[in-house]
């Protein structure tokens, strides 16, 4: 009886710690990491503003595979992955995919607009500006995605509006292409 109680207590403690570990891992690390490639959650009901001030509900992209990329003009690792994002948009936008770059700059469109218009990125040896839709992110929006621990952070959303993968830190081109293709 005493042993049964001990076993019961240990099992309870194990389950409690395991659960704590799982919830503790939810946020992941800042090293370039990604969570499991299965549906994590429904996409949040959020509405971004584009650089002209128009509303862009995330739900309006339902039917497309969407990569929401949270970035900022001051974020060097974000800048480093933009050529990959440009390539993704080039390669898959005709196949039911779109990128959505959500800029987290506090100053908003005032700083993001000129950056988007004038910054040239080296894409396969060719200078190119960002070729995908840019919107403005807010803390309220990122909270609905579960909060950001750093940038860049990206979320891959399936055609039916499920978050299927979260990427923290710079993305790997081979991996992201594989993931996008698996959703198309």
């Amino acid at each position, binding site marked *: 009886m005493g042993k049964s109680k001990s076993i019961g207590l240990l099992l309870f403690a*194990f389950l409690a710690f395991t659960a704590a570990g799982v919830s503790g891992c939810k946020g992941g690390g800042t090293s370039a990491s990604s969570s499991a490639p299965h549906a994590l959650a429904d996409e949040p009901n959020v509405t971004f503003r584009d650089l002209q001030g128009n509303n862009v509900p995330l739900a309006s992209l339902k039917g497309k595979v969407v990569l929401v990329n949270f970035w900022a003009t001051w974020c060097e690792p974000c800048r480093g992955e933009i050529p990959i994002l440009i390539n993704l948009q080039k390669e898959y936008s005709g196949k039911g995919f779109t990128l959505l770059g959500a800029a987290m700059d506090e100053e908003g469109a005032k700083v993001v607009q000129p950056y988007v218009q004038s910054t040239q990125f080296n894409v396969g040896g060719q200078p190119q500006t960002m070729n995908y839709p840019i919107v403005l992110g807010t803390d309220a929006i990122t909270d609905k995605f579960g909060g950001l621990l750093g940038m860049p952070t990206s979320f891959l959303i399936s055609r039916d509006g499920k978050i299927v993968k979260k990427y923290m830190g710079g993305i790997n081109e081979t991996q992201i292409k594989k993931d996008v293709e698996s959703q198309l």
Partner: protein
Amino acid sequence: MNSVTTSGRLLALCALALMAALGGNTQAQEATPLAPAQVVKTHAYASLDPVPRGKDFQVAVVVDINQAYHMNSHKPSDSYLIPTTITPQLPPGFILVDTAYPAGHDKKFPFSPDKPLNVYSGTVTLRLKLTAQSSAPLGTVTIPMTLRYQACNNSACLPPVKVPVSIEFKVAAAGTASHPAHPEVFSATGSSGN
């Protein structure tokens, strides 16, 4: 007998599983990124004790940066990067003569393998040169300051943050004898990070 052995084994298995779970959780906590304001620890020092009215003195803000992180120097590599700054909110009776920032060091990162970035890491000391005017309040004075920085680790960046720092020191009448304080901080040429 057999059931006791089985119970014992199950108990041991549970204990091992618990230890594994504990170990795993610790690793997860280590990997969890810091909040932006947790990246640094700051200490502020005044160069004179007390500071006589009419004298110039220095305030040093020593910034210990978490070893997994770096922050842009005061003169970062590109204009779009956010520089580290220290800004005092001076009470009446004090003048800011100069703010001296250490030079950063150029370092390449996995996300910027070709272009080195000018950053601070490790411990850096920012210095403010101040004048206590004849109207400076006598007695204990606190000067609040704001340290602004934007930190990254090797793969991701934290949002820019403003961290409050303050220095407390004594102001005495003009001509009062005073002695240099914290020579270990002020005799150094100024840290420039690792």
